[in-house]
C-alpha cells in the first residue's frame, strides 16, 4: 500500500527533477558545460517570485508568468556577456567560474533574504487530492507539477525539433565548427540554450517552492539531483532525463519508506552506482531529442 503510493509519488516527483535536469542536459549537450550554479538559479527564482508577490500581490500560482520570462532573458544575456568568456578560456575555468557563481549567488540571497526557509504560498491548492482508491491518493499539486514538467519538456522538444533556430541549436551541439560553416553564430545559439536552461530551471524552482520550503543554501542539492538525473538518463537526451528524474524520484520516495535520511541518501547511492557501472547512463545517445 505504502509502496504503491510511494511509487506514484516518486514518479510525480520525478517530473520535477526532470525539469531541473532539462537545463543541465541542454547546456551540457550544446556547450559541454555543467553550470554548477544551476540549482541556485532555481532558488533565486523562488526568492524573486516572493519579492514580486510582495510588491504586486499577484497570486502565487501565476507568479511564474512574470518570473520565468525574466530568467529566460537573464539566461541569454548572462551566457553571452559572462559565461561565454569563461567558455573561451576552457572547461576547467568554466567549472570554477560557475562554482564561484554558485557560492556568490547563495550568499547574496543570504544577505538579502536571510537564512530562513521560505515557500511560495499558493493557498488552498497545496492540499487537496484525488482519491483513486482507499490506499492511493494523487495530490493535485503533484499532478500539476508532473503535467507542467511534461508540457515544458515537450515544448522544449518541439522547439528543438521543429523550429529553424532549434534545429541550429541541435546542429551546434553536434558540431560547432560545421555550424559556423553554414553561417550560424554559435554564441547566439549558446545564448538560446542558456535561456532555455534558465527558464526551465526557474519554472522547476517555482514548482519546488510551492511544494516545499527552500532556503538560500538549497541550490546545490538540486544541482546534484539534476546532474544525477542527467547521468542516469543518459547525457544529452531530454526524454532520457525524464526517465532519470523518475528513477531519482522513486529512489527518494521508496528510500523514505525506510527512513527519511535514507531517502535523502539513496538517490546519491544510485547515482554513484550508475557512475561506477554505466557512466554513459541508461539511454546514452549524443543527440538532444
Amino acid at each position, binding site marked *: 500500500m505504502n509502496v504503491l503510493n510511494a511509487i506514484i509519488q516518486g514518479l510525480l516527483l520525478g517530473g520535477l527533477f526532470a525539469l531541473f535536469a532539462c537545463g543541465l542536459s541542454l547546456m551540457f549537450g550544446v556547450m559541454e558545460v555543467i553550470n554548477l550554479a544551476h540549482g541556485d538559479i532555481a532558488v533565486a527564482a523562488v526568492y524573486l517570485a516572493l519579492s514580486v508577490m510582495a510588491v504586486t500581490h499577484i497570486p502565487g500560482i501565476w507568479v511564474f508568468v512574470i518570473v520565468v520570462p525574466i530568467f529566460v532573458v537573464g539566461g541569454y544575456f548572462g551566457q553571452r556577456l559572462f559565461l561565454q568568456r569563461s567558455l573561451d578560456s576552457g572547461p576547467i575555468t568554466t567549472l570554477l567560474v560557475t562554482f564561484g557563481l554558485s557560492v556568490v549567488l547563495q550568499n547574496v540571497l543570504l544577505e538579502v533574504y536571510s537564512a530562513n526557509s521560505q515557500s511560495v504560498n499558493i493557498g488552498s491548492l497545496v492540499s487537496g487530492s484525488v482519491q483513486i482508491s482507499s490506499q492511493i491518493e494523487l495530490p493535485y499539486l503533484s499532478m500539476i507539477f508532473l503535467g507542467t514538467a511534461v508540457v515544458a519538456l515537450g515544448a522544449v522538444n518541439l522547439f528543438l525539433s521543429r523550429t529553424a533556430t532549434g534545429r541550429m541549436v541541435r546542429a551546434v551541439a553536434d558540431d560547432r565548427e560545421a555550424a559556423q560553416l553554414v553561417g550560424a553564430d554559435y554564441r547566439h545559439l549558446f545564448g538560446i540554450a542558456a535561456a532555455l536552461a534558465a527558464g526551465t530551471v526557474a519554472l522547476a524552482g517555482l514548482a519546488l517552492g510551492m511544494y516545499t520550503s527552500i532556503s538560500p543554501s538549497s541550490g546545490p542539492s538540486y544541482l546534484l539531483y539534476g546532474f544525477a538525473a542527467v547521468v542516469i538518463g543518459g547525457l544529452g537526451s531530454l526524454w532520457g532525463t525524464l526517465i532519470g528524474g523518475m528513477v531519482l524520484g522513486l529512489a527518494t520516495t521508496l528510500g523514505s519508506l525506510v527512513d527519511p535520511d535514507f531517502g535523502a*541518501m539513496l538517490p546519491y547511492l544510485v547515482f554513484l552506482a550508475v557512475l561506477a557501472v554505466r557512466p554513459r547512463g541508461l539511454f546514452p545517445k549524443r543527440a538532444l531529442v
Partner: protein
Amino acid sequence: MNGATLTLEALPARQPAIVVTRSRRPATWAGALCSAGIAVLALLPYIASQGFISDLVNLMILVCVATMWNALAGYVGLVSVGQQLYIGAGAYTVLYLAQHGWEPFSTVPVAIVGAAVLAIPASFLVFRLSGAYFAIATWVLAQVAALFVARFGSLGGGTGTAVPGLDGFGASNLLRDYYWLSLGITVLSVLGVYLLLRSRLGLVLTAVRDNEVGARSVGSRVMIAKRVVYLLAAAGCAGAGCVLAISQLEVEPGNVFNVQWTAYMIFAVLIGGFGTIEGPVIGAVVFFVLQQTLANYDVWYLIVLGSVAMLMAIWARQGLWGLLISKVPVHLFPVGYYVHNQPGIRERQGLSRLVLGRVVQSRNRGGHANGKPGTERAISSNHTTTGIAGETKEDR
C-alpha cells in the same frame, strides 16, 4: 622546437659545458628565510596573544587545504569539489578514536593514514571520470559521507558532538598544542607537495599539467602520479580536519563535510595563483585577511572573494603570485631545471617533456667554472603559458 637539443655529450669540447641545476640563488635565500620563519612561528605561542594564535590556526588550515586542492587541480588537472570528504574523514576519525579512549593528539597520524587509505578505493571510482563528472562525483561522495555519518547517534548524528579527552589540557596549553599541530601539518603539506614536484614523479605531473596525452605518449606513469597526488591531497585535508576537530572541540557533519571548504580552497587558489606552490599560500593569506576584515559584515567577504576569484579565473589565472613574478622572475620553491650558459635555449612551454626524456643533470664542480652565470636561462616548469592543466586558448 626543432632546434633545441639537450644531449650534452654531442657538443664539441670547446663549447662551455652546460650546467643544469635545480635552483638559483634567490631560492637558497628563500629556503633559509622559510626555515627561520617556521622557527619564529613555532615560538609565537610564547609571545603572541591567544586570539592571534587562534587566528593563525585558522589561517594555517586554510593554507593546508588550499595547497592540497591546488596540487590536485593545478598540477594534475583534477578539479575536485569534494575534498571536504577527507576533511570530515579526518575529523570523524579523531572523534571516533577519542571516544574509544585514545588521547586525541595521538589519533592524528592514524586519521591521516586512514584518509589516504580511504582515498584508494575512492580514486578507483572517480578516476574513471573527468571534468564536470569528476567534480560532481567528488561532491556527491562528500554528501553521502555526511549523510552516512549522520546516521550514527554515537557520533553525534546530524548535530554533532564534542570530542572527548580534551578537557584535561587547560585552555592555553591546548591552544599551544593544537597550534603546533596545525603548524606541523601545514608545513608538512606544503613540503610534501614541494618534494613531490621536485621528484621524478613531479616531472611527470608537470608534464601532465601541460599536456596529458603528450605525457602518456612519452611513457610517463601518469596514473600512478595522479593517484599519489590524490592520496596526498586526502592526507593533507584529513590533517586539516584533525586540527578542526581539536580546535573546535566538537565535530559536526554540517561543518566538516560542508562544501564551503571547497569554496575556501578554490577562491584562495584562484586569487593566489593556480599551479604554483607559492600561489595557494599567498591566496590563503589574502583570503584570511579579507575574511577577518569583513567579519562584521556577515558573508560579504565570500561575495567579494567569490567575485574576485571568478574574475581572476577568467582574466588572471596566474593569480597574484603569477602577476608578481611576471615582474620579478623569482621562484621561492624551485621545482624546475635551470640551464646555464646556453643562450640558445629559450623558456619553452612544455619543455619539461623534453627534460623528462633526455636531460643529463650535471653539476659543475667548484661553482660556475666557465665564468658567466649571467647567461643562464630557466627551463622553468613552474609556469607554462598554456594556462590551467593543458587547456589552451582557441586561436580561431
